[in-house]
């Protein structure tokens, strides 16, 4: 069991590092809070004064455009002050340790770190080491977790299919290297879906993958049967050079989502992708841009969901949600 440093002594959210260790009530709370930020008439997101006077640092040790931008927009809609730091081009290249970077920023009176890092466990380490008033949000650590992405995916699913208990969800592609998949699998299981099915060749599945709470298929045609939600994963080019796959065209042939393959799933199935998309590698453009695709909604939903998580994590620090 995850020793839950994510909650404070009153059981309130303090850090958001991994989906593991949260219950259905808390995840549902996040989704409901996110929904409250969306104007029901025009779908626009309100600006609220919840985090006025608070300073949030986007601490990105790994490149990202979409995630960092939506975190920044979310913080601004909460009226917080935002500082963006791309550490890949900053102090660590001067030999400063991760801990020194954190200590220096702490000394600048910040209230929250939003952290992305290439090493699994980095966000957890930072949360353990920071001053007690600071909250840490994991914006992706190595191959471990990307919990805000998982929550915005849950939010998007709920918009289309409100009852999780009826759903069969397929996650397709590079599960082995995917922090998104790990967090999605945990969230879907906590929210009580009928089945999470991973579809990939063995080279892209971690050892004892069933222990994560999934069923396994190595065949897309078989795997898509009865599926309500299709979650595609991005395939990194370096997977070919490290002998995990023979080539892009063979991968697309076996695991690429085409209009034809999509027909195997339930007729009202939705298609998701955390982005950025490799068109023609894991997904056909016609599907990515087709009527079953909710990929751009995922991006929009990222703002409201990240607002909810940041606001809730700051409750221990005086924010009233």
């Amino acid at each position: 069991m995850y020793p839950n440093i994510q909650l404070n002594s009153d059981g309130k959210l303090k850090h958001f590092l991994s989906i593991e260790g949260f219950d259905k009530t808390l995840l549902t709370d996040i989704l409901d809070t996110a929904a409250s930020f969306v104007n029901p008439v025009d779908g626009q997101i309100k600006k609220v004064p919840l985090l006025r006077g608070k300073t949030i640092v986007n601490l990105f040790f790994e490149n990202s455009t979409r995630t960092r931008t939506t975190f920044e927009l979310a913080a601004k809609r909460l009226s917080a002050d935002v500082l963006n730091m791309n550490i890949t081009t900053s102090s660590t290249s001067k030999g400063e340790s991760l801990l020194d970077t954190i200590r220096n920023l702490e000394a600048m009176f910040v209230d929250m770190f939003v952290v992305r890092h290439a090493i699994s466990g980095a966000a957890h380490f930072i949360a353990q080491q920071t001053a007690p008033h600071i909250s840490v949000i994991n914006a992706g650590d190595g191959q471990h977790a990307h919990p805000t992405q998982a929550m915005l995916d849950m939010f998007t699913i709920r918009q289309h299919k409100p009852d999780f208990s009826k759903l069969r969800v397929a996650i397709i592609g590079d599960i082995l290297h995917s922090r998104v998949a790990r967090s999605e699998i945990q969230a879907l299981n906590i929210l009580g879906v009928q089945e999470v099915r991973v579809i990939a060749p063995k080279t892209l599945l971690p050892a004892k993958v069933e222990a994560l709470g999934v069923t396994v298929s190595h065949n897309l045609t078989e795997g898509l049967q009865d599926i309500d939600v299709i979650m595609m994963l991005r395939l990194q080019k370096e997977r070919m050079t490290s002998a995990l796959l023979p080539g892009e065209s063979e991968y697309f042939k076996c695991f690429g989502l085409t209009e034809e393959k999509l027909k195997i799933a339930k007729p009202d199935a939705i298609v998701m992708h955390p982005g950025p998309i490799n068109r023609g590698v894991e997904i056909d453009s016609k599907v990515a841009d087709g009527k079953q695709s909710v990929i751009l909604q995922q991006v929009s939903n990222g703002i409201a969901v990240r607002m909810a998580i940041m606001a809730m994590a700051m409750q221990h620090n005086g924010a009233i949600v």
Partner: protein
Amino acid sequence: MTQIHIQHGRIIDPANHIDGVGDIYIIDGKIAALSNSPEGFKADIVIDASDKIVCAGFIDLSSRLRDMGHSRKGTFKSETRAAASAGVTTLCLQPDTRPVMDATSIVEYTKDLAERTDYPQIYPIAALTQKLEGIELSSMLALKQAGCIAVSNANAPVKNLLILRRAMEYAASHDLLFICHPNDFSLSNKGCAHEGAIASRYGLPSIPEAAETIALAECLELAELTGCRVHFGQLSCKGSVIKIHQAKKYGLNVSADVAIHQLHLTEHDIIPFDSAYHVLPPLRTKEDKDYLRQGLASGAINSICSDHQPHDLDAKLGAFPETESGISSLETLLPLMLKLVSQHAISLEQGIAALTQQPADILRLPTGALTVGFSADVCIFDPELEWQINTDTWKSRGVNTPFWGQTMKGRVTQTLQAGKIIFSLEAR
């Protein structure tokens, strides 16, 4: 000529099949007699060992004392004090020192440092290949003559099987023991955790059992081909225990040890990202742990080592994969061995043999037993004494133990090295 009388202790000496209350008489650094006082014996020092166990001093097959380039992590002084307080009287030093143990000058420097630290029984293990690069052979004979007790490439890879074959043939020519830490580097692929459910859940780069068992199988084949005496250090998994068992049955001249932590901890202990449990080879499943225990009980595994690796605080501060591996483990060796006994995994006699007689046999050293005429390396311990691991009790400079703060049962009260008292609990 100091004469020491150890009285009324329960003497356990597996090598001589002794288990009973009795006395030990030490004259001039050697065991002079057991039970009956030698003629003209007049004790300068009397040690009352009532309710305590008296056995040979422990022999550790794998230690790192740091120093030289790593004195932040440990020095000969700090780590030999830790060893003495743990009942360890003989230490084998891994060759991945800085600089590497591949030149006689470094061996001589090490021996000299050991003398100056008043802990002379440190045996360096020579590098198998120059700079441990796995390409060219080291001057093994010269290193042996300078005082090295075996050869090993530590945790560094040997470039290919041809080089390993030649290194083993050359070692065999000089009757040198080769200590192998089986690990196929392409399969372990810079991993930091056991390839299984836990590493998969936490997205940690992982090491399959096959990285160890394949390398072990290769080395067993080469042991047969070359006739080299091979000792396998720090095995971690079921498959290795089975392979060693089969090889011994087949008649190969091989032996094996296990690090004490592998007999108590599993992959689950690293949850969620606790770098105190970051060790190599990684902590594996409960089934592996159970097999290692059974292997020790059945004799497939000969001995237990500490695999002592002290670190400074910074080495363990970071995200799990970026932290350094290893546990500071000399001082928990005895209590954790006794825990195996209380959990009925092994008998007390087996546990003591695994720390004394067995490693002495592997190294072919005339120690590890309370035989008359042997150097008086003696450990006296109270198996019931409880103590807490904290800054008052801990001696190693490395505080990197996952057992920090815990209460241990069993503590050394006196340690004698060649008849000299190098540790006494009361004297603290």
